[in-house]
């Protein structure tokens, strides 16, 4: 398009920016309403136990207590995939599992009531390790899951749902290889994305069967779908999305807390608010699945991967709603970065007595690659292949194909990302700094520097359905109706920019509805990196539809064909003769024009992030310092430069690069308790320790929607962890295959630790 955009690609203040920085935004916990009760959860001290007896009578007598619920009181609501997990059960399956629920007029009373509930447990043997869990005779988390293996199907993805990658002939592939390596690697440190706002909900149950949910959720329509599956489709359920104080993919699976609030509201007849404390957030909310892979890789001297076989064990904790989907997407993503004809990669989902798993940014692909790439590196080392060359050669190219999550084969119609990789390498100085495998790029006494590179791409940019309505009011304003919440990325403002371009309207004439499931059409929500392409396409289509309807109404008035007309700043004019014009209101002051847009899933495009890192390792203390990060990508046309920069600079925390450096959830193997469920002990980078971050962003014309843009938000974190492992291994000359690279592990690898067993898998 030759015409210059008014807003796309320009720095425009986010619609909600001033409200956020002045504290005017109403987050979930800011909401107040009449007769509001506060709900609290009594939590299990044991990782695995049966409730022999539970006495709530003392709690019920406390003044201000309106409802106390135990497993004996609640409806038989079940969640998870498959739907096995009762909201309260006679059996508790992790430390922190819900034992009883209380609603009271104040938080203090609710907490006091929890202390008055007497519970007698029969403690059962627990299993916390995924490899222990699949051994014969291991305690069963669910009697129904033999060997603690969870069924692999994810109904939403259909009968072909990927559970592995299977094609070609691996035996032949290994024969063709110049080197075959085998290895095991785990990404099991459970890095927590920890959005600043803890999960929270208000539920109001009105008889008969009418439920309103005010939720801190990333995707209200999906949330409604999941919760309806738990409390019953017969319930008239509406979900009101709110500004979300960060999500990082985690606030999609919030049905558990919501179902607690629903049950308490049903029992008390009053609205019930439940907000997790920071400790509960870290210790009891869903976590990233554990990933452990044993794989064999065949590779040729030129970097061609001839075969991959292996088993991917995925630890799901006591249950999960999304693990099967994460495996399916991960299995797609591994093909995007490894062009190979022969695959035999299998997966198994293992449940244990720790927190449930849920969706977290990186959604399967990050978990899989963090465990797989170190094994690939062993082969590259044997053949002396520069990992940048490997990545360039093996990342998906136009015309290649892959099985995606539904098991179908898709042909890639996107761009070649090699130019972005090259420019990133140049910015980083890769060719100067790369000295070969297990060789430092520089040595200064005990300080050794090393470099690494990682890549991540995802065809989720076009996943799932989005719908949007666009309402034009003939006074020259427009309103987007979308079930998308703002969870920190600024996307709600970006859709307004797109609509402004389509309608030729000033940005301030366009507004957006609340993400209320009763007034907005379906949207899968801003998950993965689908916000820009998938959701953007629906918003654009709705605007185009409304625009066409407007011009159709104006055409007879201007005595012109629809195709001859255009609109700018609330005026409709004949393109060839702009003086022949009418204001929108000429089509009727009493008329509303409604456009509808729908995006159908498209798995034929993928985004790509290449991350280069340089670290310095103090070989006498084991300290690893991240010195520099270069992120290289091609985002197509940049919609919002500061928003994109924010996404890319977000590569470190929220379970990204730092999940290889120091982020980890420490689960005590003896008690099953999480030992660092606070932000002091869960190590989290502060602004005082930011490394140099450089971003290289190309703007190729990508065949997405009319603005030729794709999202890269999710992938900014995912390429980094493997790059860190590579960089530290190169710096010290010893392979590290466990995350994170703590001083303990580094010193152990260097044989500088005397005494007891050190390092190893967490």
């Amino acid at each position, binding site marked *: 398009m030759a015409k210059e955009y008014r807003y796309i690609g320009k720095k425009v203040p986010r619609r909600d920016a001033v409200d956020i920085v002045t504290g005017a935004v109403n987050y979930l916990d800011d909401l107040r309403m009449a007769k509001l009760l506060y709900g609290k959860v009594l939590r299990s001290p044991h990782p695995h136990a049966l409730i022999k007896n539970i006495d709530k009578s003392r709690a019920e007598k406390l003044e201000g207590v309106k409802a106390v619920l135990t497993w004996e009181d609640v409806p038989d609501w079940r969640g998870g995939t498959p739907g096995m997990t009762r909201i309260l059960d006679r059996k508790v399956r992790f430390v922190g599992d819900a034992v009883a629920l209380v609603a009271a007029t104040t938080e203090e009373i609710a907490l006091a009531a929890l202390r008055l509930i007497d519970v007698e447990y029969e403690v059962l043997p627990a299993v916390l390790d995924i490899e222990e869990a699949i051994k014969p005779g291991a305690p069963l988390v669910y009697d129904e899951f033999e060997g603690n293996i969870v069924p692999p199907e994810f109904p939403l993805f259909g009968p072909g749902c990927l559970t592995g990658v299977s094609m070609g002939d691996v035996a032949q592939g290994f024969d063709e290889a110049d080197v075959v390596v085998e290895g095991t690697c785990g990404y099991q440190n459970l890095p927590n994305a920890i959005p600043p706002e803890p999960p929270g909900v208000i539920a109001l149950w009105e008889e008969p069967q009418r439920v309103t949910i005010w939720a801190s959720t990333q995707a209200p329509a999906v949330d409604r779908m999941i919760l309806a599956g738990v409390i019953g489709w017969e319930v008239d359920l509406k979900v009101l999305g709110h500004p979300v104080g960060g999500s990082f993919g985690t606030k999609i699976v919030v049905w558990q807390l919501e179902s607690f609030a629903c049950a308490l509201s049903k029992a008390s007849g009053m609205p019930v608010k439940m907000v997790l404390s920071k*400790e509960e957030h870290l210790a009891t909310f869903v976590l990233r699945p554990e990933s452990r892979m044993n794989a064999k890789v065949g590779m040729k001297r030129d970097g061609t991967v001839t075969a991959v076989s292996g088993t991917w064990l995925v630890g799901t904790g006591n249950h999960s709603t999304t693990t099967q989907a994460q495996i399916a997407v991960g299995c797609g993503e591994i093909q995007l970065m490894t062009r190979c004809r022969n695959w035999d990669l299998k997966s198994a989902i293992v449940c244990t007595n720790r927190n449930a798993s849920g969706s977290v940014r990186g959604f399967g692909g990050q978990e899989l690659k963090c465990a797989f790439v170190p094994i690939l590196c062993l082969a590259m080392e044997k053949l002396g292949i520069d990992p940048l060359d490997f990545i360039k050669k093996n990342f998906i190219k136009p015309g290649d194909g892959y099985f995606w999550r539904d098991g179908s084969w898709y042909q890639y119609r996107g761009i070649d990302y090699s130019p972005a990789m090259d420019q990133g390498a140049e910015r980083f100085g890769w060719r100067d700094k790369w000295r070969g495998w297990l060789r430092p790029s520089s040595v200064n006494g005990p300080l050794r520097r090393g470099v690494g590179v990682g890549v991540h791409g995802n065809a989720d940019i076009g996943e799932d359905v989005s719908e949007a309505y666009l309402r034009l009011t003939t006074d020259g304003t427009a309103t987007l109706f979308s079930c998308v919440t703002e969870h920190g990325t600024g996307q709600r403002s970006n859709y307004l920019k797109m609509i402004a371009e389509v309608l030729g309207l000033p940005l301030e004439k366009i507004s957006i509805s609340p993400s209320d499931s009763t007034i907005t059409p379906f949207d899968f929500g801003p998950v993965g990196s689908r916000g820009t392409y998938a959701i953007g396409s629906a918003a654009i289509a709705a605007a185009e539809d409304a625009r066409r309807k407007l011009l159709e109404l104006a055409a007879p008035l201007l005595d012109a064909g629809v195709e001859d007309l255009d609109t700018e700043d609330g005026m409709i004019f004949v393109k060839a003769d702009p003086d022949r014009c009418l204001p929108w209101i000429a089509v009727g002051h009493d008329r509303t024009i409604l456009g509808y847009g729908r995006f159908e899933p498209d798995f034929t495009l993928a985004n790509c992030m290449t991350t280069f890192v340089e670290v310095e390792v103090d070989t006498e203390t084991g*300290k690893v310092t991240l010195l520099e990060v270069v992120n290289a990508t091609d985002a197509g046309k940049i919609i919002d430069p500061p928003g994109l920069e924010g996404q890319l600079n977000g590569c470190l925390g929220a379970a990204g690069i730092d999940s290889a450096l120091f982020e980890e959830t420490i689960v*005590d193997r003896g*008690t099953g*308790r999480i030992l660092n469920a606070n932000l002091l002990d869960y190590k989290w980078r502060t602004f005082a*320790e930011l490394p140099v971050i450089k971003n290289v962003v190309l703007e190729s014309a990508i065949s997405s929607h009319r603005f030729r843009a794709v999202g890269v938000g999710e992938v900014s974190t995912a390429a980094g962890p493997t790059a860190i492992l590579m960089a530290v291994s190169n710096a010290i000359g010893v392979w590290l295959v466990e995350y994170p690279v*703590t001083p303990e592990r580094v010193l152990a690898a260097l044989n500088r630790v*005397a005494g007891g067993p*050190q390092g190893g898998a967490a």
Partner: protein
Amino acid sequence: MRNFEHLQATSIAGAVAALTRFGGKARLNAGGTDLFGLLKDQYLPGFPDSIINIKGIQGLDAIGEERGTVTVGALAKLSELSRSHLLAERFPALVQAAGAVASPQIRNVATVGGNLCQDVRCAYYRYPSHVGGAIGCARKGNGPCLAVRGDNRYHAVLGGRKCYAVCPSDTAVALAALDASLVVAGPEGERRIGVAEFYTPLGNRLERGEMVVRIEIPTSSLPHQRFAKFALRRPIDFAIVSVAVAASVTDGVCTEARIALGAVAPGPVRAGEAESFLRGKRLTPEHATRAAELALSGAKPLSRNGYKVAIAKTLVKRALLGEAAGGAGEYADVGLDR
């Protein structure tokens, strides 16, 4: 948080009387930065009946010098220590240690008395009550130390007994190297306890009704001072290992050296053998390395904390040689308080 009686103490005598009256069921509140964690997480059995605010006790934050002794009031803020010209001149290691604690915001609130008396950071000990109940342990007098067979990556490598939690205070390490004493007030009047002797495996030597009122540091001429802290992150983190060194060197020869190790034991540990070894020696890399070996010669690491011994040796060696501690270690963001 649960309800409690809030008392305003305006004198040491008043605070001591209140502490005595509540018979162990009262807590002092100075900066409150450690206390509020206790009140919120409720990791100890019982809940304080009373919180005694001592912030209003006049003069208890004074820093001054008299007859060869520098005194620092217990209510002096950590940021006041790290900004003090007197301390910077006499005891740079203490200034560095005070500036290495937490973050500028916390140092503006937290007091040195509170820093010395803060509770240990053991994750088992501090496990919050509202996520399955607090954990009983030896320190609480109701169970074994779970760290011995559990996750002990941050626990003691020296001097642990019954409880293997380490003293988390940075300033205690510098004060131990400076031969400082704590003046403690109680129902029976005042007494003095050496900082290195203040801590015990299960707590400290404060008796019921007692409180730390000031620190006394003998002025001595040990001009070479250094505090080094190794932590996973620079601001807002507790030491994995810390080291304070104070030495005098004449013509390249060490005439006296004091070395204190932190975060490796229930209290700061003076490395007597290493100190004796260094007397009369040149501070060469070889001698520093030998001194570091001697300082850790008594280490008995648990299953997962042997790496702390390696880090401690490195810190001792580097501190003696006047080198940067490395990594995030260098006395944190000292200077931000200026």
